[in-house]
């Protein structure tokens, strides 16, 4: 009898063990090995996509040259970018690309192609020009890196979703990883099993972004920016993708269409107010002109899952230090992982206390939920979408979604959460036109069994309404008239006043022009914002004008 049980145990553990490590074969990838010995072991995968550039990375088993052939026609990859240094970890930047354009590519070396997809499923679609209002879809994965069947089921459920999506099917503009991408310690081999072997099909056509998780941080050393996490990913440090230069890959930002993404490091970097990351994030969020702001970091601001945001110091510090600043500057969506569950908040603002201090009845300015629908489910077919407008700019949804590879339970009773589920799944965020001049930001939680267990909408009106220009000439004063066509500025002071002088100060406050006339030629002045100081015998007027 014991022998039989032992056999069962052995068999089940064998199955389990294989389920943990074996990659599922990807049938649609057609690799061509023009030489018998050089193989692509990892990738290709896409990094740091911008409207005009993208980085292609891959690994070969033997050091060789790096070649990317690319073009807008699948049958004619007429452009080539190469690096002749013999290396195994390849990184090639394609630049000078056209925004919002599909480029097919293959990778290889000087002797030929090493990997391509004969069905045309290896491509990059460059990001739209910054500020563009269009459909955007992001796949959000928290704590996925178990390399087991749970992770693959979650992946496959998303693949099914996107293949059958009612609009823009097959399109995934980006992947957003919320950290802990490869258990248990984020080593290179673990990344191979739990990351590249699992998502390879998507990596060759969708740019992957990530924040650092605590498990990634066990082998990655942020103090020296070394280790697998920092080697595998290449993120913009100098504002190359539209954000503010952070000088580090630990935290960075990027723009995609009219969405600004802020990626924070809640694990290694200082979370203090006034620290380097805080100062950077403050400047970055106050420098965006985009319509939507999405923030991601690993440790959840709100969670009662396998981690408790009332107890762990990192979540507390992120919530107390960063959230007031981010909320004051219009953050719309906050994505976290760490707890292996799905917890989704109401439409929040100003709740930085513990879970038991959450007060859903607070809906006034600075309260805990925002707007008449803020304490509802956020569903357009139920309590109604969460609402933001030109006048009502507050409110954000917080999602802790760390169950893309496993579930770990917990009390799951955080009062700020509309819904808490101990279920496997990933999220998809879709931004689309609302048909009324605004946009909807919709997030769905897609279970591993293909069910959508939660969804909500943030509706933002007035997105397509630009700043109201007072008149065509850009005139911003009653006393001063800017005649754009004739390149003149005229000054009309009151009848009982006499004009004495007119001074022009440029956009850094330098005095650049003086006049005593009431009609002033400005044809030689640079375009831009000016302050005009108009002195009469009775008064000094200070006006502004934008010369176009």
């Amino acid at each position, binding site marked *: 009898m014991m022998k039989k049980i032992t056999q*069962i145990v052995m068999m089940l553990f064998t199955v389990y063990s294989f389920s943990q490590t074996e990659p599922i074969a990807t049938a649609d990838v057609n690799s061509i090995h023009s030489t018998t010995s050089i193989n692509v072991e990892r990738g290709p995968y896409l990094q740091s996509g911008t409207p005009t550039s993208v980085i292609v990375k891959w690994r070969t088993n033997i050091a060789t040259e790096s070649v990317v052939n690319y073009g807008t026609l699948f049958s004619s990859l007429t452009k080539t970018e190469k690096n002749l240094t013999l290396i195994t970890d390849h990184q090639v930047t394609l630049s000078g690309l056209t925004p919002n354009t599909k480029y097919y590519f293959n990778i290889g070396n000087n002797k030929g192609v090493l990997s391509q997809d004969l069905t045309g499923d290896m491509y990059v679609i460059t990001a739209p020009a910054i500020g563009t209002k269009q459909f955007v879809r992001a796949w959000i994965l928290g704590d996925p890196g178990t390399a087991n069947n749970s992770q693959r089921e979650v992946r496959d459920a998303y693949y099914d979703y996107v293949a059958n999506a009612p609009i823009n099917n097959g399109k995934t503009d980006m992947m957003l990883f919320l950290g*802990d991408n490869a258990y248990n310690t984020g080593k290179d081999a673990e990344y191979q099993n739990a990351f590249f072997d699992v998502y390879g099909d998507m990596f060759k056509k969708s740019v992957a972004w990530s924040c650092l998780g605590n498990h990634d941080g066990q082998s990655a050393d942020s103090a020296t920016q070394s280790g697998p996490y920092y080697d595998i990913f290449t993120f913009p440090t100098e504002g190359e993708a539209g954000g503010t230069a952070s000088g580090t890959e630990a935290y960075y930002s990027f723009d995609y269409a009219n969405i600004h993404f802020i990626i924070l490091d809640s694990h290694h970097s*200082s979370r203090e107010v006034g620290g380097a990351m805080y100062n950077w994030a403050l400047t970055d969020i106050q420098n965006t002109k985009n319509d939507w702001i999405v923030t991601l970091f690993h440790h959840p601001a709100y969670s009662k899952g396998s981690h408790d945001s009332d107890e762990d110091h990192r979540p507390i510090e992120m919530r107390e230090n960063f959230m007031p600043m981010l909320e004051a500057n219009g953050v719309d969506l906050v994505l976290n992982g760490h707890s292996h569950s799905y917890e989704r908040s109401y439409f929040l603002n100003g709740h930085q206390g513990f879970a038991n201090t959450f007060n859903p009845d607070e809906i006034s300015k600075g309260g805990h939920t925002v707007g008449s629908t803020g304490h509802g489910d956020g569903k357009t077919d139920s309590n109604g979408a969460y609402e933001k407008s030109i006048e009502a700019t507050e409110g954000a949804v917080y999602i802790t979604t760390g169950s893309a590879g496993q579930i770990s339970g917990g009390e799951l009773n955080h009062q700020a959460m509309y819904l808490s589920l101990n279920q496997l799944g990933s999220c998809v965020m879709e931004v689309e036109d609302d048909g009324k001049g605004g946009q909807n930001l919709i997030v769905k939680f897609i279970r591993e069994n293909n069910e959508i267990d939660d969804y909500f909408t943030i509706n933002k009106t007035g997105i397509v309404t630009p700043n109201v220009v007072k008149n065509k000439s850009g005139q911003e004063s009653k006393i001063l008239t800017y005649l754009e066509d004739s390149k003149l500025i005229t000054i009309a002071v009151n009848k009982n006043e006499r004009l004495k002088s007119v001074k022009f100060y440029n956009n850094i406050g330098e005095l650049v022009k003086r006049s005593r006339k009431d009609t002033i030629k400005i044809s030689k002045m640079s375009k831009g914002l000016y302050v005009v100081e108009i002195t009469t015998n009775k008064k000094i007027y200070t006006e502004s004008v934008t010369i176009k």
Partner: protein
Amino acid sequence: MISKPVTHRALVIITFLLLSVQVFSHGDLTKRINQKTKEIVENPNDFKLYYERGFLYQQHVEFNKAMEDYLRSTSLGNTDKVLMYRIAEVNYLSEDYKNALSSITAYLEVDSINVKAKKLEAQILFKIEAYKESIAAYHYVMKTMVDIRPEDILEYTSIILAENNKNFSKAIDVIDFGLTKVGENTLSLQVKKLEYLKDSGQVEKTIEQYNYFILEYQRKEFWYYQKAAYLVSINKSKDANISLKLATATIEKLDAKFKNMDSILELKQQIKSLESTINN
């Protein structure tokens, strides 16, 4: 007939075991510490296990327990230099700087060029106010580290100013060096440069630095206000007024959706208040 219930029981046990593996793969520190403790019970003389549990304790901010395990690992024969580094690190984190220094010194005798260890040495020396030695150690870090972080540069300048609180020229030189290493527009470094220029009374350069931010950033309203506040502080009220006017004009030109954000509403109040200060 008898085998059935036994098989069921076996399956229950198997299920439990599989679930246990799943739970432990979660990586929760407490659970991993418990697991490591079980392994230690089974292999009480395995120094590797004590080191591993010590590191888990360290991550769990239980420094006393971490140190106990590290010392136990040492006594069982672990001579790995990584253990020496961890001991120094835990001493540093526990604010036992004397022992931290002796531990890191021992480490550096084995591996004198390790940049991470040199950095820890510099940090320990800073804590015991041995500033010159700390600067020397950090200088090595600056020269050697491949991927310097903005935080490293900021830490180095703070040590330089701790040693001599008038030495802004060197601190600014280090910032400028950092900007060449990590990117000329790195925000945290440019902000710190501004702070040092202000603190050292370099008015023209401070104004230039504000202008750098105004020209570099697409939204300028916050920078105009900050520049105005500085100009008021050095009694340049007229220039401050121009800057406040630019701030107001810039806000007016913002897309409508930004104008009602809390940060902009607060900024408007600050502008109003500063204008009132200047004009009264």
